Structure formats: C-alpha cells, structure tokens
C-alpha cells in the first residue's frame, strides 16, 4: 500500500516540498519563525503520510528549532537562529536525496 501511495503522490510531494522549502528559506530570512514552524510542520505531516521517515524527522527537528527561535530571548536568539539554519540545510539535503532516488520526480503521478 505504501508503495502505491508513493507511486501516486511522491512526485507531487517532491514538487510541493521544494516550494515549501523555498518559502521556509524566505521566512527564515524575514525572521518569521512562527510561520516558518508552520511550514515545516506541514512538510513533516506530508512526509509522514508517505512514510518518509528521514524527511519527516528532519522537518520536525527544524520545526522544533523554529519554535525555539520564535520563543528565544534577544540573548539566545542568535543561537536558535543558527540551529534553525542548520536544520533547514539538513531538510534540504534530505529532500535532495529523495528527489535523486525517486524516479519520475517531476512528472505526473
């Protein structure tokens, strides 16, 4: 069943995730941590539905980092921001690995 789900939805997931990640980067640059956390949560949820554990786990960690950043004080904000940047990079790598390992990544399901 999961193979069937992936066959149907993986190309769309890869495309949507690229868009989400691009939005996440611009939210990060703009300092909008709460919306960034929401975007990453949505990405993690979609990855869970397709049983893409690594992407889901990395997106969830990035979401946690974004939430910590949104609650951070002025003193600790820089550290939280850096953690968030690192997590975003890892999510990007996980998505890249997924897109090169999945055939027909940009085609219709």
């Amino acid at each position: 069943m999961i193979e069937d789900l992936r066959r149907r939805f993986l190309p769309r997931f890869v495309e949507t995730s690229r868009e989400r990640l691009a939005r996440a980067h611009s939210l990060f640059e703009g300092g909008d941590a709460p919306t960034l956390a929401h975007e990453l949560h949505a990405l993690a949820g979609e990855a869970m539905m397709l049983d893409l554990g690594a992407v889901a786990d990395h997106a969830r960690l990035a979401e946690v980092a974004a939430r910590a950043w949104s609650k951070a004080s002025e003193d600790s904000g820089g550290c939280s921001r850096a953690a968030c940047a690192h997590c975003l990079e890892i999510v990007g790598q996980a998505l890249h690995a997924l897109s090169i390992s999945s055939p027909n990544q940009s085609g219709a399901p």
Partner: protein
Amino acid sequence: MNAKSLRPKILIVDDSEIVCDSVSTMLEPRGYDVVSLTSLFAFTQTLATERPDLVLVDVSMPALNGDKLIEISRKHHDNRYKMVLFSNRGEAELSTLATKCGAAGYIQKTGDAERLAREVELFLHPGR
C-alpha cells in the same frame, strides 16, 4: 452510520491536499467514503450537508488550529459529530490537546493504511 450509504463517511480537514488525497486513497478501498476540506471556509456547511460519521481535523492549520476548531464546533453542535485530532505531533501532546478541546481522541498521521483504518474503526465502533 450515514443514512445515505452503508459506508461510513469520513470528513478530513487538512490544509494539505497531499494529506487529504492520501487519506482518501487509503480509506476508500477499505469501505469508507471520504470527503476532504482543505480550507475552513465551508466547514459548518459541509458538516450539515455531508453529515460525516467521523471528522479528522488537522491540528496545525493556517487560519485556525484544529483543537480550536473542535472547541468552537462543539459549542455549536454539541456532540452531534464525532471529531478527532489528526496530526504528526507526539502522543502526549495530542492526548492533552484532545482532552482540552473536547475531541473524541486523536489519530497520528501515518502512511500505514491498515493502521489508519483500524484506528478510524475504533472511533466508529468503540465497543468492537
């Protein structure tokens, strides 16, 4: 059970089309009718017209969080509709949220169709 059909009707409320379509793909072959809503715009109207047997509500949505939606909805509809939180958050957090908002419970997001159907069935027929 829904009056129009012997198949239980599930309403999924989630701003992600991928999540909604995945739930339909997993549950429809297992004997459920699935209706999807990706925005809250027509939520009340959809409840009235579709009269779902179970409503799966995503927690984290842009306009209004799912727990708040359930809380508000329960004030308007009492317990007429069985609503559960549907999320990839941890079990402890979901359990607390479900209790606070008056949801019937929670289901964690999964790509495991058997597990999803089993959990849905537990809410539809708790005694079985």
